[in-house]
Structures are given as C-alpha cells and as structure tokens.
C-alpha cells in the first residue's frame, strides 16, 4: 500500500482533473510520455539554455514568460479550477511586488526567499478580502467586484508614497537579486531564479489540484448546489481558492518586479495586465496547468514575432505605433478565433495534435515491427 493515487506518474504539466489521463491509479509506475516530456523540458531549461541562450532571450522572452506563466497558473486555480472569475490579477501582482520591495527595503536582514513567501502571504490576505464578495456574488457580478480590487490597489499605490519609499516619480528600483549570498542579478541568474520559483510552485499546484481539495474546487465550479449538498465546505473552498490564487499571483508579481523589470510602478499593474493574464488562461486552457505556460508563451512571443515580421515585410512603414495597433488587432482576432475553434485552449489543441502523432507513430511502428505493435493498444 505504498503507491496511492497521489503518486500517479503524471507530472505537473499533465492534464488537470478534468482530463481522462489517470488510467492506472495504483499498480505499476511507468513514466508516462508527459513525465518524460516534462523531465526533458526541465533539463533543457535548467541545463542547456543557460549555456547557449543570449541575453535577449532571457531578458525579453524567458523571464517575462516565467512571471506571466506563474500569474496564469495562479489565476487558473481561481478561474479554471474553482470557477470564480477575477479581473483583478494585476492588483495581486502589484501587492506581491510592493510587499517584497518594502520587505527588502525595511527588513534587509530577512533572506529574500522569506521576503517572497511573506509577499505571497500579503497578497493572499488582500486576495482573501477581495474574495469575500464571492461568497454572495457569482459570474459577472463577481467579476465586477474583483475590478474593485484592481482600481483600489492601483489607487493606493499611487496615492500612498510610503509604499514606493516616497519616490517622487512613483517608480522605484528594486535591489539586485541575491539568494543566500549568491548574486543572481545577471540575465541568466534572474532567469534561473524565476525558473526555480516557477518549478517549485508548479509542483505544489499540481499536488493541490490533484488532491481531494482540488477535486472539491472543481466540484464547486461544476455544480455549487450539489457541492453544498454533499457536504463540501463551499465558503471555505472559495476563500481558499482566492487565497492560494492570490498568493501565487503575488509571487508572480515579485518575479515580474525583481527578475524581469527590476523596477516597480503602479502603472505596470493596470487593468491591461489583468486582462493579459486572463487571456493567458483562456487561450492556454482553463483548468490545465500546461495551459498557463502555453498561453503565456503565446502572449510573450507573439508581439515580438509580429514586430520582427512587420519589420521584415514592411520595413520603415512598420513603426511602433503601427506595431502596437496591429498587435492589438491580431491578438483580438486570435482570441476570438480561439474561443470559437477551441474553447478548451492551446492545451486541448496540443492534446489532439499529440494523439494524432502518437496514433501515426503506433501505426508506423506496428507496420515496421508487427509483433511489438500488435499487442499495444492506444
């Protein structure tokens, strides 16, 4: 009785509870293709990329990707798993970023890892407060009430100089990143730091969504009345979802400020950012861990790719104004196309693609070596 459901060989990026992935709950533990894929991905991300990547790759693509993916992961717990809509994600990022800044400024003796945890807890506390309306409100009404978080938090950081150490411009520069005496203020260092944080948090989130509590969150999302009738603590679960989600989004805010921008300003956490995170979750796939990463990759890479493409095709005509405009238009079209073609997001798209490739491979394999292929069913 050592191998229980929690030990399923499904890695963090494997499907959430609403997929059919778990086939063998107990019995032989065989690394699934997804486990191998995640292992390979981590090996490349930790081992290979730091050796071969350029500064541009880390500073402009990978680090912001990691921060946004983490924010997407956080929002996915709330929206994808627990079914509570939120338009205030950027506010919780801001809370995390400002909390970490003030902690490192005012309590410099604390190690930075502790700063991060405390910043996450502060964001969780704020998230809990703004999650209280969810006990009475649902759907659009809840979404509107989370907008209050967005505007209120941004207003507070603009208004109260203490938070930005009375900086006249409102923009503060964060101290260089260093963990346990190890300076991580180079491009690669900040990237590796972000990658480590994201890996750890993703592991924890995977454990959470795979636990009975994670299933209970999904139950709450799918049928709140039935969840109440079978004795699930609906109010506690909602607040838990808000707290955990805000914690993670707060940590994402710390990454955004300390690993990516190295500055903090309220305007960086405006409503646009909240929508960006929501788009990441929707495009990537609701209730899918992998979805947050896919969505963030698209959101980060897409504008850069479009800029390159425009430059190549149109040359001087494609100035920054045109670029910004075309980004908005194309991204908007993309979201609409996605919602129509694949409401379950990139994650589901990838699943389908994978199944097709796997099917082809199996067919090919059974043709090449009929004996080993024939008794294998897909």
């Amino acid at each position: 009785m050592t191998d229980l459901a929690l030990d399923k060989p499904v890695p963090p990026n494997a499907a959430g509870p609403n997929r059919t992935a778990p086939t063998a709950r107990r019995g032989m533990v065989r690394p699934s293709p997804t486990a191998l894929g995640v292992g390979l991905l981590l090996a490349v991300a930790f081992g290979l990329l730091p050796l071969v990547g350029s500064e541009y790759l880390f500073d402009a693509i990978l680090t912001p990707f990691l921060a946004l993916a983490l924010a997407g992961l956080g929002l996915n717990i709330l929206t994808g798993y627990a079914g509570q809509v939120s338009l205030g994600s950027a506010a919780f990022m801001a809370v995390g970023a400002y909390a970490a800044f003030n902690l490192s400024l005012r309590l410099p003796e604390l190690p930075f890892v502790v700063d991060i945890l405390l910043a996450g807890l502060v964001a969780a506390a704020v998230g809990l407060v703004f999650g209280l309306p969810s006990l009475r409100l649902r759907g659009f009404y809840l979404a509107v009430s989370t907008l209050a978080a967005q505007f209120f938090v941004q207003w507070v950081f603009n208004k109260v100089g203490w938070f930005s150490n009375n900086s006249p411009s409102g923009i503060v520069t964060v101290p260089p990143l260093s963990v346990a005496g190890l300076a991580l203020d180079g491009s690669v260092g900040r990237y590796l730091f972000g990658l480590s944080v994201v890996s750890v948090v993703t592991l924890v989130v995977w454990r959470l969504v795979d636990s009975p509590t994670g299933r209970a969150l999904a139950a709450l999302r799918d049928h709140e009345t039935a969840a109440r009738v079978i004795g699930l603590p609906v109010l506690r679960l909602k607040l838990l979802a808000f707290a955990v989600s805000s914690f993670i989004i707060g940590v994402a805010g710390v990454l955004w400020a300390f690993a990516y921008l190295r500055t903090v300003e309220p305007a960086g956490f405006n409503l646009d950012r909240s929508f960006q995170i929501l788009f990441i979750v929707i495009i990537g796939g609701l209730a899918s861990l992998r979805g947050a990463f896919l969505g963030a990759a698209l959101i980060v890479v897409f504008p850069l790719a479009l800029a390159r493409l425009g430059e190549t095709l149109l040359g001087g005509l494609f100035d920054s104004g045109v670029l910004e405009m075309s980004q908005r238009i194309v991204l908007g079209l993309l979201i609409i196309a996605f919602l129509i073609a694949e409401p379950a997001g990139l994650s589901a798209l990838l699943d389908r693609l994978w199944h097709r490739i796997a099917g082809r491979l199996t067919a090919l394999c059974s043709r090449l070596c009929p004996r080993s292929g024939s008794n294998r069913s897909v």
Partner: protein
Amino acid sequence: MTATPSEAPHLQPSATQPQAAPSALAVDGLSLSFGGVTALNGVSFTVAVGEIRAVIGPNGAGKSSLLNAVSGLYRPDSGRVWLGGHSFAAVPTDRLAALGVSRTFQNLALFKGLSVLDNVAAGLTHRLRAGVLAQVIGLPTARRERADAYDRAEALLAFLHLEDARDRPVGTLPYGVQKRVELARALVARPRLLLLDEPMAGMTLTEKQELTGCIRVARDDLGATIVLIEHDIGVVMGLSDRIAVLDYGRLIGDGTPEAIRNNQAVIDAYLGVAHDLEAGEGI
C-alpha cells in the same frame, strides 16, 4: 405500465405501523410559497426507518419543492423538518451530509468536468480529516484517507455497474449512466436517508428494472431509508412501502400502495383518467 406485481415490497407488513417505529424523516405543517404561488400547503408526513417512501403527484404538485425544503435548498415559510432526531425550521444544507442525508436531483447535478470515479469519491470528501497542506505534502494519513475513499467509490461503481465508465469525464456519458453516477455519489457515504428526485426519468424499461433492484439493495443491504419521487406508477406501486400523494401543494393521500390505489381523492386528482376509463368500462 412497466413494473410487474412480482416486484411487491418486502417490508409491507412492518410499514403498516409507522407510528410505532422511529422516523427517519418527519415534516410537520410544511408551507412554502413563491410570491403568490403556493408550492406546499401544510404538508405533514413521516418516513419510518428502513422504509421506501414514494411521493407522487401531478406536475407542479410540490414534490420537488418538498425535497428541496427537506434538504434546505428552500426555506419553508412555516412548519418544521425532523431529521435524525433534530428539528429544523430551515435545514442547514451544509450539515446535510453530516446528518446522514444525501440526495439526487431531478435534473442531473453532477460535476461535469470530473471523471465518474472522482464524482463518486466527492461524496466522501466531507469525511476527510486531513487538511490541504497534509494533502499537498502527501502525509501518510492524507494518503490513506484518500485511498480509502477511492476504494469505497470503486466498490460502489461495481455495485452500480459503472466500472467501464470509471475514468470518463461524466459530461460525456449518456443520460441514463449519468443518473446512475449521481445515485452512486449519493450512496457512497452510506446515507441513513436517501432522497431521490425522479431517479428513473428518461430511462428505458430495462434500466428502470435494474435501478429498482439497486434501490432495493440500497435499502436492504446498505440500510438506507429512501424517499422517492417518481412518475412511473408501476415502479412506485411495486417498490414503495408507503406512498404520499401531493396535489397543489397539499397532501391528499398517504398510505400503502393498496390504500392509495383505492383512495378516491387520489384517483380524482391524480389518476383521473384511469378513473374515467374504469367508470366507462363499468357501465
């Protein structure tokens, strides 16, 4: 008519003296109205421990309102509900599972995104003692609890012949199978009182017969007292020990299937067509 006379209830003799037996559920003068519409009007009846109690009545008679009031989804205007020795003006839905009450819904109320097994296991989640952290870390107690819950869920899947659907997302299954999944979720916690709101609606004859057997086993072997709303009179007559008949929110008949069959008020209100036919044949 689908059920056969051979499906006569086992416990009919004991059910004839409900007053003597302790009641699993009693409603006393329950009234409920929505705006000007009266859904329940002073309804009182008892359900004895171990009995299969049917509630019948024409559409809009207040049957589902009754179950919703008993499970706390509606708050009655007046009257009380007795559940397991406690008396409530409004039943606390959150405590329902702890009181040993579970129910199914007229329209399916499943967790569509979860697998069949997860849906059924969710019926036991309220019993888990391990906290979120223990679950995330995977402490031995949390893992044992969870394994135990899933073992029970699997046993119930076997009981209701749902093993083949085990890992399918429940939203992709046919209606009749989803109905059974919901019954499994309600049964997995071994409820003392099971409220079934039209469990056989939309089922084929074979499925109905199968489910009738399952309901009997739930009572006989799992020890659940059962309150059943059902439209199929054949099933009701064959399965239930006693029947309560509602019409326009009022209780117009209460007794054994035999008594209900011969109750003039019931015949007039509910089996009116049959009555006319019988009268026609008699002439």
